[in-house]
């Protein structure tokens, strides 16, 4: 089992968010994310839907952008704020400028999902579902993992391959 990493990062809402600030959550979903990646964009409305659908069951969804802004200026904090506002994200969106969270997670892709249970132990890692195209989805990995963890069960799958852009390291 792997514990959730500590963090304290600025969010697009103008507030800082730490791991402790999600202490009441029954499950915490950290998503390595960004603005520019077409894979992220293809999945982000589904991520918002999941955040909304599980919110009243105590699940918090938190996207973290750690990309190097010098090579990808579309991923700057200002651009994050614009995108979150334009798209109406139903999840928190945090900026990991030092890339410490991405390193601690061992993230490689965007989007890449990490689900933590009530004790903040990792119970699922990988993709949101099995198809970039919404009408091609047959396996709801993230939804299934959340349903399981909220029922005190182990997710049907603990790991799937994340498909997406690479994290842009400095």
């Amino acid at each position, binding site marked *: 089992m792997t514990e959730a990493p500590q963090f304290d990062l600025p969010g697009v809402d103008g507030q800082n968010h730490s791991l402790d600030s999600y202490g009441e959550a029954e499950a915490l979903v950290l998503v390595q994310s960004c603005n*520019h*990646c*077409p*894979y992220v*964009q*293809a999945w982000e409305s589904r991520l918002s839907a999941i955040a909304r659908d599980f919110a009243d069951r105590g699940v918090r969804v938190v996207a973290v952008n750690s990309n190097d802004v010098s*090579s*990808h200026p579309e991923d700057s904090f200002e651009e994050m704020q614009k995108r979150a506002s334009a798209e109406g994200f139903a999840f928190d969106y945090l900026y990991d400028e030092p890339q410490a969270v991405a390193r601690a997670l061992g993230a490689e892709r965007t989007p890449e999902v990490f689900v933590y249970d009530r004790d903040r132990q990792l119970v699922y890692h990988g993709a949101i579902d099995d198809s*970039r*195209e*919404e009408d091609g989805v047959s396996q709801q990995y993230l939804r299934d993992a959340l349903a399981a963890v909220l029922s005190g069960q182990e997710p049907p799958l603990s790991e799937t391959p994340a*498909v*997406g*852009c*690479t994290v842009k390291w400095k």
Partner: protein
Amino acid sequence: MRIDFLYWSGCPSHPEARELLREVLGARGLDAEVVEREVGSVEEARELSFPGSPTIRVDGRDVDPAGASARPALTCRIYHLPDGQVSPVPSREQLEEALA
């Protein structure tokens, strides 16, 4: 007909785009010269006006002209599909139109 297929190996979309291009060429019975080139540096991206991976040009014309002028970068390219969705690869329709 010459088709330039430019890609960056850091983005996972080029095998899907390559297969789609092969399918469309095959379905149309076109005997085109497909020239693949891997773009490996920012300098090369600038030199080739490479807006992201994959970039496909038919006789020099980008299959998605609207996205062709984006800032050259080693990145996954965004394609805006007619139905409003975003994709890392062009649609079959975009390829068919470019090859018409």
